[in-house]
């Protein structure tokens, strides 16, 4: 029997009883959007439903004219026959889990989430439910995030080393979410200007307006060229690596901040000098803990290589299935 709340379709995850999609990939009438990343918040939907904390970021992505309804975390609203509410997922500013209630049954779609503290957003809120749909980006036990304080120590030691060697320290990180989280984590520990690639400027500004404390930053274009950047920390999106933009600092030491950096093969393949393990997704233990916290009787696993998580959960006595098992 088809699930009245969950139906994977080519356009995205569809809620038949509510008549809406979650993070649709193609234009639809009603879209609940869990975060402002480009792959989730796409232009062209007739109406968007988002968490208020992420409204400014959504407007930036979607443009002023988009019809966006914003809700406080936990504030219920109705779409079709479904009572919907958004709850913090801890992934980034304004990121949300989607709670759907229909005929006495509760389904929660986690969106991307993490369990670690993040100074830029509200922490993940466990939402009790009957069915929990979890992400599975890092669904193997080799992914276990180190404490953030330890990573910040490593980052600063790297920057100090670059200062000794008189070379710029270019840190690649995703422009939305990761960059601001790193800046906020560095804020109490760094007393120098941090330079930003152009793609980060507006997004960092929006986080500041949302009240996130970050160290003073300067557009790289305003910095003096050449030696003046020796020992300075520069943040840039991964797309800038290997681009003509990098030619301005031929001697720079490069680093990438990502959960993938946990594995040596990934570090070496990407060709960065350093890899720092920082992720806005749940690690293996975070995934298991969230499944337990949900109290759900049925677990669906989305995304990529989730088969190990499904199998492990089943061996642990959970009724877990890949989301694709629901059929399209």
């Amino acid at each position: 029997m088809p699930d009245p709340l969950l139906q994977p379709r080519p356009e995205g995850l569809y809620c038949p009883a509510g008549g809406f999609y979650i993070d649709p990939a193609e234009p639809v009438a009603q879209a609940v959007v869990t975060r402002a990343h480009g792959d989730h918040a796409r232009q062209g939907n007739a109406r968007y439903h988002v968490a208020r904390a992420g409204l400014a970021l959504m407007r930036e992505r979607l443009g002023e004219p988009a019809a966006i309804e914003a809700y406080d975390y936990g504030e219920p609203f109705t779409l079709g026959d479904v009572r919907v509410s958004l709850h913090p997922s801890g992934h980034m500013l304004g990121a949300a889990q989607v709670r759907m209630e229909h005929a006495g049954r509760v389904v929660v779609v986690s969106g991307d989430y993490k369990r670690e503290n993040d100074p830029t957003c509200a922490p993940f809120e466990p939402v009790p439910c009957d069915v929990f749909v979890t992400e599975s980006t890092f669904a193997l036990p080799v992914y276990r995030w180190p404490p953030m304080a330890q990573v910040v120590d490593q980052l600063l030691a790297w920057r100090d080393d670059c200062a000794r060697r008189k070379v710029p320290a270019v840190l690649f990180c995703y422009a939305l979410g990761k960059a601001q989280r790193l800046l906020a984590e560095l804020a109490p520990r760094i007393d120098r200007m941090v330079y930003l690639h152009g793609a980060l400027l507006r997004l960092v500004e929006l986080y500041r307006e949302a009240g996130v404390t970050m160290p003073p930053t300067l557009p790289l274009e305003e910095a003096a060229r050449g030696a003046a950047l020796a020992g300075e920390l520069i943040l840039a999106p991964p797309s800038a690596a290997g681009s003509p933009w990098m030619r301005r600092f031929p001697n720079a030491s490069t680093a990438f901040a990502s959960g993938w950096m946990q594995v040596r093969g990934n570090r070496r393949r990407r060709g960065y000098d350093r890899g720092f393990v920082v992720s806005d997704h749940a690690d293996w233990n975070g995934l298991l803990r969230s499944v337990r916290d949900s109290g759900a009787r049925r677990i669906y696993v989305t995304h990529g290589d989730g088969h190990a998580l499904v199998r492990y959960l089943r061996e642990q006595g959970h009724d877990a299935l890949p989301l694709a098992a629901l059929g399209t």
Partner: protein
Amino acid sequence: MRRFAQLYAELDRTGSTIAKRDAVAAYLHDTPPDDAAWAVYVLGGGKLRRLASTTELRQATREATGYPDWLIDESYAHVGDLAEAIALLLPPGDGPFDDIPLHAWMEQHLPGLARLDTAGRVAQLKAWWHVLPAAEVYLLNKLITGALRVGVSQRLVVQALAAWSQLPTDLIAHRLSGDWSPDAASLAALAQPVEDDAHREHRPYPFFLASPLEAPAESLGERGDWLAEWKWDGIRAQLMRRGGEARLWSRGEERLDGRFPEIERAACALPAGCVLDGEILAWDDGAEAPRPFTALQKRIGKLKPGPQLLAGTPVRFMAYDLLELGGADLREVPLRERRERLAGLLDGAPPTLALSPAADTQDWDTLVQLRAQSRQRHTEGLMLKRLESPYRVGRKRGDWWKWKVDPYTLDAVLIYAQSGHGRRAGLFTDYTFGVWDRGHLVPVAKAYSGLDDAEIARLDAWIRAHTIERFGPVRSVEPQHVFELAYEAIQRSGRHKSGVAVRFPRILRWRTDLAIRDADRLDDLRRMAEG
């Protein structure tokens, strides 16, 4: 081992050869010699014999983490390195951690592992893992399972030793060759200003290695300035006749003592104090050409070959260089003269000890024609050596070129894929290819290289989306893609399901223009193997 773990991290995070050399040199400066000697040994690719089986490592991991075997295997396949996967899977230790010196690990603790039974080894591994920080758990696992592989070549270790000792690299390379023993005294001997050591006579010279010739041969200049020789497909070795005995050293600087007694016996007729460079080949008495490499493999594996094997697979040493004569180092003497003296030395020697013949031609054109006969002569092509050149150390371009004939090729269908290791961890880069046999695709070759990064990424995504079945880390995929594989030789084989063994297969190109029905047929390959 903490300082060594720090060195490893420094080496791992830089691609710069100079930075690596400096890091190793700095380590040599500030580390006690008994530890530094072992670092030189393991960085240069040395390893202890395998101390624990994969099964034991997995069992210890299962007990330490509580994870089922299949999850440990999935993690291993994803990470691409068992030592690293284990370090990532173990719960983090809470310290404080002991700093056990590298030499204590290598000389006492790790060898002690070999004396335990399986249960004892598993318990010992868990106990060590518990008291080490993650970086050292990883290193310990690497030392237990094999080589470090941290992008440091023997050459780089030699350069670091040279920087540290202020001696020339060639001298260090020679002192380090052979069975250098990793202890403080040997390290001190490496750094002695003058060559004054008793071990010299047991050591081979560092091998001079040729580079592949990519330009046309005419670009090398006058034909008369070059010696052309057949390029043998055997075991490169130095034959040392020193003291009262004859020894063979392989290019991997392993002693081959006792494996090829007929060569050692023949060498005893040579005057003491000479060293020959050449190739060991399986070669039947009276035959025109050597047997394929697979025949030689039967001999490599046998420490003490019996009379049946000796008679069934006789070997020869084809000598092509003379590095020492009358106890004098000839490496700076021009090849023209070394070759003349070698010919004189081997005049009248039995076929077991022969002079590798020159491929004499007047000009480059006739040499090109002669090279076309390489396959019939069971050789890989030609070697071109500048007649005025000294015998150099390692791979130095310019004087020695290998000019191999074009490889054989076949078209085969991708049927299985497995994720790679190291830099290719987590990507499907180890492929198995099949050819047609009565309507089925039968695996004939595995290949790991030949595609560029973009092709690997494309194929990786395709494999994930078109997996038929998983067998642990291996996936069978829909037969859809045809690849042109190059290989060096094909032989009949009872050990392979297909009945043929393909030597050195690698991917030449992705044949998107071919359909799978266009792939080769096993019958044709078998016929090739007969011929």
